[in-house]
């Protein structure tokens, strides 16, 4: 058995990212979609921190801080939108918003 090495975390990060992506593609429930986005953001964060470690730099950490800020803002606005949509359409299904088609 080998010792723990940072690159292993990169693989985890990729897997989580892809799961998030899959959720984003497959789920129609906007709440779950937003959660999937959170998953992807987290995966990227992990990637940043890992690279930071591997490169002997702290920039990754800083970036993660910013990403977290953005993520917080994003989920606040996103959930606001979901509420607004639910008000109008009584649903949180993304297939209901297709106004741009045709």
């Amino acid at each position, binding site marked *: 058995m080998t010792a723990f090495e940072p690159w292993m975390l990169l693989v985890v990060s990729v897997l989580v990212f892809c799961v998030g*992506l899959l959720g*984003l*593609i497959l789920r*129609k429930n906007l709440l779950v979609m937003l959660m999937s986005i959170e998953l992807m953001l987290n995966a990227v964060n992990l990637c940043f921190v890992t690279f930071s470690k591997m490169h002997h730099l702290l920039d990754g950490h800083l970036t993660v801080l910013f990403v977290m800020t953005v993520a917080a803002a994003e989920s606040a606005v996103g959930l606001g939108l979901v509420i607004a949509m639910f008000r109008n359409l009584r649903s949180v299904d993304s*297939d209901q918003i*297709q106004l741009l*088609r045709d």
Partner: protein
Amino acid sequence: MITSMILFPLVGFVINGLWSLGSARSGRRVPPSVSGAIATLAMAAAFVSALVARSQLPSDGAIEVECFRWFTLGTLAVDFKLRLDALSSLFTLVITGVGTLIHLYSISYMSEDEGAGKYFAYLNLFCFMMLNLVLGSTLPQVFLGWEGVGLASYLLIGFWYREEANVSAGQKAFVMNRIGDLGFLIAMFIGFKYSGSLDLAVIEKAVLPGAVATSFVLLVFLACTGKSAQIPLFTWLPDAMAGPTPVSALIHAATMVTSGVYLLARLSPVISQSASGMMVIAGVGAITALITAVIACFQRDIKKVLAYSTVSQLGFMFAACGVGAFGAGVFHVMTHAFFKALLFLGAGSVIHALHGEQDVFKMGGLKSKLPVTFWTFTAGWAAILGLPPFSGFFSKDEILHQALVSRSGSGWVFGILLIAAVLTAFYMTRLYLLVFFGSPRMEKSKFDHAHESPAPMALPLVLLGALSLAGGFAGEPVHLPHPEAALSTPAWVIMIVSVVVAVLGATIAYRRYAGGSASAEPATDVFRIDAIYSRVFGGGLRATASATGWIEERVVQGLIRMVAALTDLSGNMIRVLQVGSAQAYLLMMVIALVVMVLYFLKGMVQYGNL
């Protein structure tokens, strides 16, 4: 003096043109006598300038006046330069002299017409352009005049533009002239290519390689056939008679149509370089003279007879040029200008007297009613027949003589011209008899109301009559190099022959038409040339245009439609993918991303970066 000569008509044109335009807008009419007086004075002043210029002309040289630099491009530099020598001096005198008389005549002739101001403007424009043509010292300048007179001719033929026929006649003239002009243009290009200049003085002296010389000559001659109504481009001239009669006299008899002869005479050193070209010119000239003389015998319209006669006489001139006797040709230009202008003005006087009647079979017996017209017309008739001592005798005799004896001449040219001369005598006598002798064949009231034209119309007739009578004694006005004589037939033999044929033709006509009770002959289009042309060329153009239209609509527009349809189709195909679900788009993005990444990874692996 030379500058003022061409500026006077220009000033007249501008004054009359702007004035009549302004008055047309405001609705007031320009008094015909005033605009006529302005135009006539301008021409008279030009004539005086031409006389003065002639007197200043050194005996064997030229006067040049540089006006301005017209254009330069690369090695080409064209100056606007006026050049007066013996040849152009003769032409300027004829143009301004005859022109003045015809302007004078027009004042009275057009006094009833509401567009008189415009008419005189056009007439002055014509004289300006014609002077440019003969005074121009470079080919583009000559071309300026060449096209300019064509424009004036177009405007004046279609002067009464409310009649479709007049307009079409003008258009026909313009377009046929354009065909000739194309020849002129290409001749200029050839001249420039081989002599490096467009200056007449340079091109005259240019020595062109054989085939080039021939093509140059033929192209120049093409231009001449257009402007001077020779075969194959002659059919416009009879139609051009749709214009007012003084116009026919000035433009379509005395001056413009002779510019082809001027051009050949001007370029005679180059023209002489191509024997085959000369042969074509002589042949075409002679055949034109013959054919149109035949046609003239079958016309009923007094102006049409004169028109075909003009074409025929021009044929004589070209035949003269073709055998190398440019001097004789120019001589005939001069005498022809006198007597043909006279004949046309006389015809105009007759038409005027009969209120527009042009059919010779509805005339007759006008001798006593129109004495001045009759006597002057007689002078013109005698001159065109070539009876001594009238002017036409000298020039025509010279042409016949040269046609026979010149090295480039030949028996058959002489023969054809001789037959043409017989026919000339025939149709002119026919016309003369039908108009002035016999019993009147028009309505009685018309005959009774017919009266001699007023003085402004009579005066030009008398003066031109005098010139037709005495003009020939001047002899060859310009001394262009004579062709070498190949035969030594004495001149007097030809003289006798030419007088004999004239008398012969006149006698035949007399036999037939002197009875006074001439029965109307139908006007026959003998050779149906016009009809054939309109079928072949008019139809050809229409067919080509329709074919082009077909290509345009089917092929080009079809292609456009195809491209449009393809765009539509591809749009519809892509539209299938636009399902409107953001998630589906995301999926497509992912797929695209994978493909792209794979592609780049492959590249990186190849280059060993991975």
